[in-house]
């Protein structure tokens, strides 16, 4: 009879062989060491392209200007010109193809992001004209009285002034 002592070793080797076989089947072919070496660059290369292919939602003001040039020029003179159109009008996606119209955020919450008065004199926040959201017409939407595209006090809506 041959040496029986090595039999568990054969079982172990068979297991290792099995794992190596499964590895061959399961590991994507482009998995390997890339530019940043083994410590930082051990990955599946095609994943980079997957991330590059993520759909862009915010298309920036450039696209808005191309179609709505008159509006754009007008607003660019106001104090709110620093705010990107999409911050209030929502991400553009493929508009006007999809969606044909955008959902504009006219909520009070949007305005108080900057205009809730927080009196910090270090930094710009304290300098922004602000209100106390709990005291300044708490039930009303800001756009009922204020023109968001031209927010200077004298440009408040006519009906609100009278």
């Amino acid at each position, binding site marked *: 009879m041959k040496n029986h002592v090595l039999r568990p070793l054969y079982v172990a080797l068979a297991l290792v062989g099995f794992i190596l076989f499964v590895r061959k089947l399961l590991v994507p072919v482009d*998995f*390997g*060491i*890339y*530019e*940043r*070496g*083994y*410590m*930082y*660059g*051990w*990955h*599946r290369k095609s*994943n*980079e392209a997957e*991330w*590059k*292919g*993520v*759909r*862009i*939602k*915010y298309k*920036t003001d450039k696209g808005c200007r191309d179609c709505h040039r008159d509006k754009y020029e007008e607003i660019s003179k106001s104090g709110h010109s*620093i*705010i*990107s159109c*999409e*911050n209030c009008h929502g*991400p553009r996606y493929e508009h006007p193809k999809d969606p044909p119209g955008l959902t504009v955020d006219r909520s009070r*919450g949007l305005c*108080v*992001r*900057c205009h*809730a008065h*927080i*009196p*910090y004199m*270090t*930094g*710009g*926040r304290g300098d*922004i004209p602000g209100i106390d*959201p709990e005291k300044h017409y708490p039930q009303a939407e800001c756009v009922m009285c204020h023109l968001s595209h031209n927010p200077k006090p004298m440009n408040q809506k006519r009906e609100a002034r009278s």
Partner: protein
Amino acid sequence: MINRRQFCKRAIIAVGGLMLPLAALEIFDPRTLQAEKETGNKTRWGFLVDTRKCVGCGFCVKACKIENEVPYDANVTRTWVERYVVTRDGKTYIDSPKGARDGFTSPKIDQNHHGMHEIPPQEVTKAFFVPKLCNQCENPPCVQVCPVGATYQTEDGVVLIDRTWCIGCGYCIMGCPYSVRFFHPVHHVAEKCNFCYHRISQGMKTACVDACPFGARSVGNLKDPDDPVTRIIMTERVSVLKEEYGTKPQVFYLGLSKEVK
């Protein structure tokens, strides 16, 4: 009982046997060595935050969540804004309610379990806002600790996560000193800011940079000396967060104060 001679012999065999598999762990790959020498790459993304310009409106957080499909109401976020309020008695109060997704709309400080803390305006000696995001470290500890190679650094320095390969062990979340990582509530894999890789690789800016009305955020190529971001980093006094961890963060800050954690 064994004698000394036998003991020594066995000990040597045991140690030797142990060393073999350890030695096998070291992978000597010519590509690794080559990669370390290679310098042909022309892009290294970096970020600049000017804390003096930030007013805590949180438009960046909102845009980021929508652009990168992080569930809007989940209390996790790829980028966030912190508020620091230092009072006359030397105390520092910090908060970031919902990551500042809806901006800072009240002078009250969110102390989580302890509720809202009100500080009289005359007690405030300095107060400021600090946007945070992934630092895309040169030596990312999160990548080092990933057991399966599901997170990695691209040639242009951005750290990405392979959503099809991540096992969700959370070791990278633990390994990040900046706590920028979290589990994606829908995909159930590790998630974090990737400088909007889909945007910057197409010549656009990140969603948060585009959304910031005050120019507090900017993204640029650190390998291009003419890039406005690079020029500021090269010529002005910038600092980084938690330098002591040796991660070499690539998000640079202007006007950072010592209170910032």
